[in-house]
């Protein structure tokens, strides 16, 4: 029996942990060849071994700092050189920190935009020619409820993630004619960091759990991965420019977001 993504090639940034790992594993399980790229190449190699052993797919690893345009260009080129195609692009690498807006320096704003927004822009621009030639592309970008709802104390993250959403939707309009879809996932799932934090702060875990309508934390592999797989597959071919909240309903009704920040 043919697997759903057999014959496809997927590039995932930040695939060795968290959301990226969940998406990458779901796509690999469906039979795609994988190109995984991130700064920590040791973790990436370890993850690659897991993907090869568990799903029997080819995996290529590359050390990439997505805040550097030349490295992002090289990443896309290396994927196409190795596999001859690039069907699915998952721009997952990104991060945030809690800090008051007025204390944010120019350098910090610029850095967060390089990491969360320009990295995505560069990867999409580099991937476009091959996707256009293929008349097939699936772009999956990560947004955030922080951005959509403008959560306090994460201004650069909010702005850069909202910029990614606008970029993604513009690409959806402009590139739809070429068989390329571009969608956004706003995920909420536990990460290794979150689990460590909750182990040390059980009251916080309880408090945050109460804000999740589904009554449980998301797991990247079981809950986010399948959605990424759906967006990577043929079934979603007429669906583009969407923002999908995969968060157990947390995006509805509002959240009492109050992280600790220094004055």
């Amino acid at each position, binding site marked *: *029996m*043919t697997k759903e993504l057999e014959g496809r090639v997927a590039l995932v940034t930040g695939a060795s942990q968290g959301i990226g790992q969940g998406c990458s594993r779901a796509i690999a399980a469906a039979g795609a060849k994988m190109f995984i790229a991130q700064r920590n190449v040791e973790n990436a190699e370890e993850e690659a071994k897991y993907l090869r052993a568990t799903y029997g797919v080819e995996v290529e690893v590359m050390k990439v700092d997505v805040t550097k345009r030349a490295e992002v260009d090289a990443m896309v080129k290396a994927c196409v050189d190795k596999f001859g195609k690039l069907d699915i692009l998952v721009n997952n690498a990104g991060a945030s920190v809690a800090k008051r807006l007025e204390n944010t320096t120019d350098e910090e704003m610029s850095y967060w935009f390089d990491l969360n927004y320009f990295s995505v822009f560069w990867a999409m621009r580099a991937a476009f020619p091959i996707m256009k030639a293929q008349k097939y592309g699936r772009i999956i970008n990560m947004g955030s409820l922080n951005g959509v709802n403008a959560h306090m104390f994460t201004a650069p993250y909010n702005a850069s993630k909202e910029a990614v959403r606008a970029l993604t*939707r*513009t690409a*959806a*309009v*402009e*590139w*739809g*004619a070429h*068989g390329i*879809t571009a969608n956004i996932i706003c995920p909420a799932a536990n990460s290794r960091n979150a689990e460590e934090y909750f182990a040390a702060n059980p009251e916080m875990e309880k408090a945050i759990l109460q804000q999740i*309508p*589904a*009554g449980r934390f*998301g797991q990247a592999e*079981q*809950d*986010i991965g*399948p*959605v990424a*797989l*759906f967006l990577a597959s*043929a*079934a*979603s*071919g*007429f*669906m*583009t*420019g*969407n923002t*999908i*909240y*995969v*968060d*157990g*309903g947390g*995006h*509805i*009704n509002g959240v009492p977001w109050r992280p600790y920040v220094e004055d």
Partner: protein
Amino acid sequence: MSDTRLAGRAAVITGASDGIGLGIAQRYAEAGAAIVLSDVDDAKGESATKALKEKGARVVYQHCDVTKKDDVLAVVARSVFEFGSVDILVNNAYRGEGIRRVEQWSDDSLQANLLMNLYGPKWAMEAALPHMKAKKWGRIVNICSLNGVNAHMGSMPYNSSKEALRSYTRTAAREWAPHGIAANIICPAAASASYKKFTEIAPEVAKATAAANPMGRMGDPAEDIGGVAVFLASEDARYLTGNTLFVDGGGHINGVPWTPDLGE
């Protein structure tokens, strides 16, 4: 290749004799679901049911006018009777009635749209709730419209009632999430029965709308909408609720040349 993603699930679909409802029924059947196919057009409904049965689907037909509460309760009960449960509910039924200026729509027209697009789904969802709660598993897929989201000219009762349904669906999504029930909305653009009717009423606008779509075409109910409905009804959507998915080739972005002639 057999698709078993909805194996063991029972689905109720309203307005399923044609268009998007039928497209979804076809894909649900292929995915292994048992189906109560319902409609007001019994000839068409029975014919569609027969065709699905011939392909090996477990499907029964039930007449259902979604503006009549008894009909709606009966169609949910039919699923429980035939299949032992109602796991998936697709509120799709709609009957179009042309375009008119805001101030030209009667109270009766608005009320009819609210009955069809809000009360019908409400009755179905409330009837399905105890069964879904008992299994701690449920999927609700409600069909809404870009007309509503973007407030298109000429279709005020449709717009208002479909937006009311979106809000109702999201509220239910929030409140019923603890029970393992996911409720989501699809805003489709497909060559449905009402779209075909629209092309008769306003052919130039319909043509321009399809051409302005980034993918340059209207969707096919089974090929383009059906797969998304299967995903939303499946285990894969377990952490996804309260969403509005635009399955329209990107037509919801950038703006649409929606300019029907509303007369003087």
